[in-house]
């Protein structure tokens, strides 16, 4: 009995020590002097962790003489926006589309004039293109969105409810199709019928593709570049008509001010827009936030052709409710109908 008591007591002490130690460590990580919390969508992960954040820390040290710890969370854009509005106290938000950022404005976390404070870049960090990733050598001969609708082709794209990237993907298919809303919806339906996995975020979707699943993945050009850096070898196709992806970012005013980190937050945002930051982003496949989209001198990038922007369709303010509103959005309806429904309405 003595032994048991001692054993129990020792276990309780040990357990409590572990629990307390871990808890303190976790708490301490937040309270360190200069800290910055970034809430990002899934794609910029490598660009930030491997290049941008270390370079920013060096620049901050040069500027202020102090060290700074930057912690970033990477989730699907919709999921990240949700997390930030529900209490994840990020100082800077980098999301996949500006309607997700506007969710933060609606929650009074970001000032409504965030676009204007970009110094001419209208709130963007960078741009990219919606492309189609295919197996090396393009064995299925995929060249355009219509090819994704061919029978037997298996397609990957993330779920637009949680992934901003998915919304860009489907907008590209929709926008590239000709005809009225019904014809465009039908074009989207043909592609959606071939989708076999809907991951939560853009990154997960591409990783699934790399595991050998599916014939093609609708993705960002930027993501393919990152995959290449990681040694993955596959090709991608830029359809003749596709969407330009605008990647918005903003200081999360409410949290940055509450934490007293506004200076650091704005410095981070400014750094991303600076020539140094933009060059680093380009190394990871992002196209510049301003200026021409094509980079003819840079052999890493394919020709962009004549893609359209969200603004051509009225901006996400108009697109999000029209196409993606729950239940009533045109693309939502396509997603919620089955293959049988699509075929019946053709």
């Amino acid at each position, binding site marked *: *009995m003595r032994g*048991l*008591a001692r054993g129990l007591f020792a276990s*309780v002490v*040990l*357990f*409590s020590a*572990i*629990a307390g*130690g*871990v*808890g303190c*460590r*976790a*708490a301490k*990580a*937040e309270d360190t002097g200069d800290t910055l*919390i970034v809430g990002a969508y*899934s794609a910029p*992960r490598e660009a930030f962790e491997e290049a941008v954040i270390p370079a920013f820390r060096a620049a901050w040290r040069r500027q202020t003489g102090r060290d700074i710890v930057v*912690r*970033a*969370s*990477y*989730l699907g854009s919709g999921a990240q926006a949700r*997390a930030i*509005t*529900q*209490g*994840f*106290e990020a100082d800077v938000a980098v999301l996949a589309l500006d309607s997700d950022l506007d969710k933060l404005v609606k929650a009074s976390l970001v000032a409504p004039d965030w676009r204007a404070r970009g110094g001419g870049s209208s709130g963007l960090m960078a741009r990219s293109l919606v492309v189609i990733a295919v197996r090396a050598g393009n064995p299925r001969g995929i060249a355009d969105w219509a090819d994704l609708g061919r029978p037997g082709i298996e397609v990957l794209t993330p779920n637009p409810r949680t992934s901003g990237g998915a919304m860009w993907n489907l907008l590209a298919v929709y926008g590239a199709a000709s005809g009225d809303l019904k014809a465009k919806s039908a074009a989207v339906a043909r592609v959606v019928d071939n989708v076999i996995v809907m991951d939560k*975020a853009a*990154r*997960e979707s591409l*990783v699934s593709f*790399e595991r050998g699943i599916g014939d093609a993945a609708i993705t960002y050009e930027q993501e393919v570049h990152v*995959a290449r850096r*990681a040694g*993955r070898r596959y090709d991608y196709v830029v359809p003749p008509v596709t969407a330009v992806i605008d990647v918005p970012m903003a200081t999360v005013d409410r949290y940055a001010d509450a934490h007293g980190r506004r200076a650091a937050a704005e410095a981070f945002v400014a750094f991303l827009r600076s020539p140094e930051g933009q060059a680093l982003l380009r190394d990871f496949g992002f196209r510049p936030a301003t200026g021409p989209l094509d980079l003819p001198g840079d052999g890493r990038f394919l020709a962009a052709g004549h893609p359209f922007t969200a603004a051509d369709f009225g901006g996400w303010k108009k697109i999000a409710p029209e196409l993606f509103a729950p239940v009533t959005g045109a693309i939502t309806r396509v997603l919620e109908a089955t293959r049988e429904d699509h075929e019946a309405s053709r």
Partner: protein
Amino acid sequence: MKPGRAVLGGAVVGYVGILLIAPIGAIAWSALSSGPAAFFRALAGSGGGFALLLSIGLAALAVVVNTVFGVVVAWVLTRDDFRGRALVNAAVDMPFAISPVIVGFALILLFGPQGWFGGLVRALHAKIVFAVPGMALATIFVSLPFVIREVGLVLAESGHDQEEAAYTLGASPFGAFWRVTLPNIRWGLLYGVLLTTARCLGEFGAVLVVSGGLAQVTETGTLFVFRSLEDRRDLGAYAMALALAGMSILLIVGMEILKRRRAGANPRQGGALRIA
């Protein structure tokens, strides 16, 4: 009779082999085929060490809380009689009924900025959701029933006589508990603790909803596996998966040994849940 037995036995072994052993073997092979050095590097790198510690820490906390209160609840359920006891009994089983994502959702409903206690949390400058406390609450919830059920079983079977005898001999209630009850329930208690720990190490759905996904801050072992897959660090994912599963498997082996001892002390076997 013999060939029939062989067929049946073979069918069962085959089923178990394909369903259980093959997948575990696949993960073990994937994690270890690059050698032990690569395994440990992948496990510890990129915040894996912290994630593992956080998982263990959360499990430790849940064990402490659920053991202390669990024994009380088990005692009350088996030794006491009052109106509403059936309700208390039903409440204990609820965590089995609730999907982990709903647990996370409920925590946000309670402690998120628009939640029931949102104002209170803000006023106290506390951080519950998207921070470790919220994950702790989720972990405690999902592992709540184990100690209660296992200790309850033992208490129900062993009867009140020994404690009564101790009371008549002048022992205080706490003394009787410490000297009479505790030794009686120790195997059940330990069994419950092991089940609790295994469950906590494996928790995923609830912490996925409630954690902010910040590496080295709010990332558990399971979340680390999830992130590693996205970071294209497959080996890291497999290594952590094997580590988590391996720790729990060791606990299982411990459970088996305890079961044997209990079979010696109490002629009752098996049953991770109180069923029939």
